[in-house]
């Protein structure tokens, strides 16, 4: 028999029993109305107030986190842009040192060539002397018309012949002078070309400088926006971080695929080095751990290499000297090379182990003798493939450092934003639950009053009667409804 059934007066007549119980309970419920209302309200507050408090705390935390995220976002963005500007300045410095350092020499060369061209040009400007004054006198004589006098005729012919000779001579001299000038002008060509090339180089350098300057300008504007902490800059940075996070994540996933292939390549032959059949845990073999350690070492060396080559800035290498940085770079590269060579050896060993295993199984499976297939160069292709993979994968893994840095940097922003959203969502849920608890309390109070509607109706009638009677004797105001002690709701 259940507890409910024990409470029933007539267990076989549930409805009747409940109604009778309700009738018995109503006077008690009416009498206890005020304290019951207070109790329900108190219970409702006991639930809703902590929820509201929790919601407020979460909302405040989300707000603080938002501020912190924004601060980090701007700091990171500012750092990135500053680094870009620094790199651009380094480029400009290199360009200036490389090209503009030689400008005095270049200018001197240019000036020398221009001076020489000027001198040569002046030489081309020197014209041959005009014919002497006597030529004019003879020209006048030559214009005398023939009068038929033989002597005069002969004199004139001689004068004409003499003039012709002189003219031929002068024209010859004139032509040879021009020929000389043309040769001088011809000798200009190499200088002109040299000047042209020099000026083109200068133009190229200046253009490169202009491009770098434009980039620096753009980045400075970006930095100004970040420093101003505008919403547009914040949105741009957040969007950029999200994109970088997913792209870097994808690249990392591909890298993990490569690392897995690498692991599979060296796990089996590692058992020959560290011993097969040794287990560190229930499922983890010592050879597998050794292979994992080698891959982790390769990744670590790759990280150091990328760091020392200044492709990444994950470690605090800023305080080490340039010489030390170089040494570290060479050490990382050499270790990586050694590990890659070890992997080549392991790839060969893996192939040997698998071949021996296959041959043994063939021998065990066959009753007769084993016919060995001729090992041609085609059958060696997988071995070469494994060797190449073994050598290249460690270097490919080294480049993981770049997406790893991006992933770590962008993860802070993405996870920060995600956490902020989660806190806001939780705050909303708590607020909603608090309101629900409050409303449920109100609903229960109303339900309580509904259960005792009969005594309440009687009470209202009495009050109305009394009011009417009192209005007949003297005017006094009465409340239309009695309010329960401490109750806010009207009955």
């Amino acid at each position, binding site marked *: 028999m259940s507890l409910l059934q024990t409470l029933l007066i007539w267990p076989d007549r549930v409805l009747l029993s409940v109604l009778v119980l309700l009738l018995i309970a109503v006077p008690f419920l009416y009498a206890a109305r005020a304290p019951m209302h207070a109790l329900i309200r108190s219970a409702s507050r006991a639930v809703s107030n902590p929820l509201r408090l929790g919601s407020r705390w979460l909302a405040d935390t989300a707000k603080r986190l938002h501020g912190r995220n924004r601060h980090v976002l701007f700091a990171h963005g500012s750092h990135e842009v500053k680094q870009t500007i620094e790199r651009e300045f380094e480029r400009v410095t290199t360009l200036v040192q490389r090209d503009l350092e030689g400008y005095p020499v270049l200018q001197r060369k240019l000036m020398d060539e221009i001076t020489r061209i000027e001198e040569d040009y002046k030489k081309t400007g020197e014209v041959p002397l005009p014919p002497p004054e006597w030529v004019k006198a003879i020209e006048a004589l030559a214009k005398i018309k023939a009068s038929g006098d033989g002597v005069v005729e002969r004199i004139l012919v001689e004068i004409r012949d003499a003039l012709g000779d002189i003219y031929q001579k002068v024209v010859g001299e004139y032509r040879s002078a021009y020929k000389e000038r043309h040769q001088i002008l011809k000798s200009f060509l190499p200088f002109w070309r040299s000047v042209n090339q020099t000026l083109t180089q200068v133009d190229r350098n200046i253009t490169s400088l202009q491009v770098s300057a434009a980039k620096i300008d753009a980045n400075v504007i970006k930095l100004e926006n970040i420093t101003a902490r505008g919403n547009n800059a914040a949105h741009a940075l957040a969007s950029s971080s999200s994109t970088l996070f997913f792209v870097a994540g994808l690249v990392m996933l591909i890298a993990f695929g490569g690392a897995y292939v690498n692991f599979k390549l060296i796990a*089996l032959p590692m*058992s*020959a080095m560290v*011993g*097969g*059949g*040794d*287990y*560190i*845990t*229930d499922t*983890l073999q010592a050879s597998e*751990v050794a292979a994992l*350690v080698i891959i*982790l070492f390769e990744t*670590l060396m790759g*990280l150091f290499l990328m760091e020392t080559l200044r492709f990444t800035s*994950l*470690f*605090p290498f800023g305080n080490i000297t340039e010489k030390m940085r170089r040494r570290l770079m060479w050490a990382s590269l050499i270790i990586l090379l050694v590990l890659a060579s070890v992997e080549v050896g392991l790839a060969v060993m893996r192939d*040997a*182990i698998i071949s*021996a*295993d296959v041959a*043994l*199984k063939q*021998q*065990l*499976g066959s009753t007769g003798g084993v016919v060995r297939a001729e090992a041609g160069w085609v059958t060696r292709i997988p071995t070469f493939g494994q060797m190449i993979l073994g050598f290249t994968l460690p270097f490919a893994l080294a480049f993981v450092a770049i997406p*790893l840095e991006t992933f*770590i940097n962008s993860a802070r922003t993405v996870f920060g934003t995600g956490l902020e959203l989660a806190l806001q969502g939780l705050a909303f849920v708590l607020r909603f639950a608090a309101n629900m608890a409050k409303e449920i309390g109100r609903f229960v109070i109303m339900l309580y009053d509904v259960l005792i509607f009969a005594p309440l109706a009687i009470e209202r009638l009495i009050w109305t009667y009394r009011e009417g009677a009192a209005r007949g004797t003297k005017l006094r105001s009465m409340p239309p409804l009695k309010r329960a002690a401490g109750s806010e709701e009207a009955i």
Partner: protein
Amino acid sequence: MKVTGTLGILGAFLLVVACGPTVNHNQAVYVLIDTSGTYVKEMNKAQAVVNYLLGTINTGDTLAVGRVKSRSFSEKEIVAKVSLGKDPLEANVQKRAFSDQFAAFAKAEQHASGSRYTDITGGIIQAAEYLNETQAGRKTIVIFSDMQEELDYKTVRDIPIKLDGIRVVALNVTKLGTDNVDPRRYLNRLEWWEKRARTAGATDWKVVNDMEHLDRIFRKSS
């Protein structure tokens, strides 16, 4: 710094993993081959089983083959045994040598006349002793016999045996002529051996007559 932290966590994980309790994953298998009476004709099948086992065992594992004769409780009855080294290539060479050694034994036994009596109990005690010495994580006795024990009057074998932590597999339990007359003899025989093995503390008892699916018995998880 973040990367250093990540590597630190990884290192700590490996340290914790390395310091955990070590479990012996090596297995030891003792194959007991009945060479008595007419069962000696089943030697080809026994060779197939041994070759299959050779193909499945790994570095660090142990395999031994003993024969059941009139009196089998003796080290002399261990025909071939091998504890594979840690190097896979070395293990491969050991497997080849074992295979050759067993092939020579099988060839010799095929032309020999079978022993008069069948001391399976003595062989099992010898196998358990050998397996316990290997200290392997998983120990298995494979009995390749018709499970019909026949002892001379001097040999005492109705003694309690200890097979704690050992799995027993009865392979190729052929039916005798009398079993065909009354199958209850066969069933009772198997029941008696199972009871004896389990009473002795064997972790498992199996009878396998389908030689085509040996992988079901020697699966790594089993």
